[in-house]
């Protein structure tokens, strides 16, 4: 993936789906591009305006905990974020992200500071921190999810193959 700026979230741990996109907006707005304007609004006002296409969201443990709202990964994707890097992810968010074709990667994010220029190399399972001149190993992404990313999400995966293509 291309090089981008890192946006390190505060709070770092337990960023829940209400913080990603508040329940106030998920009912009001069905256009995901419009919804993206309110991304992280309750914890980081003006976040959307700071983001450029290809940037990365960086967080700590249990990113995406809370509700099952798929608007959360959608808002991140539509804001132009390349990938979310976190120490760990909540289960439903993790599934939702790959299902809609948003890349999320588990790695030690403590060595990434806000504004660092970083780059994710999925094939080498590495995050390159250009600002700090260091490489961070990422957890491997299971084969089925890599297929979803390649196909652009699980719906597109289904359209293309007519069924799950597991273990191939």
């Amino acid at each position: 993936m291309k090089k981008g700026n890192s946006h390190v979230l505060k709070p770092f741990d337990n960023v829940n789906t209400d913080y990603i996109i508040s329940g106030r907006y998920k009912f009001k707005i069905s256009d995901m591009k419009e919804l993206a304007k309110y991304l992280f609004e309750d914890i980081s006002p003006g976040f959307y305006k700071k983001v450029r296409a290809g940037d990365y969201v960086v967080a700590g443990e249990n990113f995406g905990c809370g509700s099952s709202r798929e608007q959360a990964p959608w808002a991140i994707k539509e804001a132009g974020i390349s990938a979310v890097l976190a120490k760990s992810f909540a289960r439903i968010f993790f599934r939702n992200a790959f299902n809609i074709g948003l890349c999320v990667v588990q790695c030690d994010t403590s060595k990434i500071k806000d504004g660092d220029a970083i780059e994710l190399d999925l094939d080498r399972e590495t995050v390159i921190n250009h600002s700090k001149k260091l490489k961070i190993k990422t957890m491997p992404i299971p084969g089925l999810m890599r297929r979803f990313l390649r196909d652009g999400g699980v719906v597109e995966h289904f359209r293309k193959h007519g069924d799950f293509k597991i273990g191939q």
Partner: protein
Amino acid sequence: MGKTIAEKILSAHAGRDLAAGDIAICKIDFCFGQDGTSSLIIDSFRKSKKKKVFDPGKFCMVIDHSAPSPNTGVSEIHKKIRDFAKVTGVKVYDIGCGVCHVVIPEMGHVKPGSLILGADSHTCTYGALNSLSTGVGSTDLAIALISGKNWFKVPESVKIGINGSLKKGVYSKDIILHIIGDLGSNGCTYNSVEFHGSTLKRMSLDARLTITNMAVEMGAKCGMMEADEKVLSFLRKTSKIRSKITPVTADKDAHYVKTVSYEASKIEPMVAKPHTVDNVTRAAAAKNIKVNEAFIGTCTNGRLEDLKIAHSILRGRKIHGGIRCIVAPASAQIFKDAANLGYIKTFIEAGCTVVAPGCGPCVGTHEGILANGEVAISSANRNFKGRMGNPNAYIYLASPATVAASAIEGRIADPRDHL
């Protein structure tokens, strides 16, 4: 090696022997969405270019999160849900039916050993009925709707034992808040949490459902319990299930990544302080925090037993002047029963506002949004910043007894002072 409940249920639905860590495609017995997630389910379904749902009898949509509709945006979503149902022949539980997690078991969609997906994170509730039920996103749900199946990673299991007798004034909500406070909001991520022990055996099914409902608040995929006579009686009498019921038990030599046990008699009335569910303390230690709004209801604590407990505290009393107390029975059936038993009369006479069965103010879309700086005490399951519609407000979570007692005092109270 023996198997956990989750390993057995997923193996049965994959048609092959599975163990924790395996990834498999499994058949789904039932799936559903609510009004906050169904719009995207419908979009994903249409994008797939499929014309038919896999089995119209195995899917439904429940309009509960903003019901009745508070604005035109929601009204359009509700209309989209109703229109989709007409075209595909699936069932809609419309406004007034109640919260999905209470309506779905009442209507007979849950059986021991079944595999259920819901586009709502608290789908884990039905683990108390010995089913593997878990929350997923809308696209995930759409895949189940198209194909009747989905992919699963078989979870590692955690065994939690709860033994002994609860003290007076202490309820299942206090147990689960205590456990979440102990294990943390990340304590069981991706795990199946099996609850066992003598305390559960003595507990009503209503009380057990509160515990499994909150399994997701420690990151769990599902919360599981074994089925006993109380479960079977509910399934026959309330759910009206006539078909054969086969409970699933864990093997004695099943493997658990973690085993924890709690002594029920040591647990006190608890509250979760803002803004995380694991930020737990004793209610007695939070006394004197003034509240502006008290809320009794939700898929966690809006069942008949919860309303009975609140009624027993509020009967003949008045809520504190200047505060609001909102009561939302969790389903139409519960509303009817609570009316027949005089609980609703108690609430009205005490000065509470009774609203339609549904999620009520819990999700912050209507019916009691907090003002800046206000404090709520709620019987719900989440106290995240902004949850009840205002990021500048503060939410405390507690049992219906603690909420009712707090409504009387106008500040966080220990329910034991009111029993």
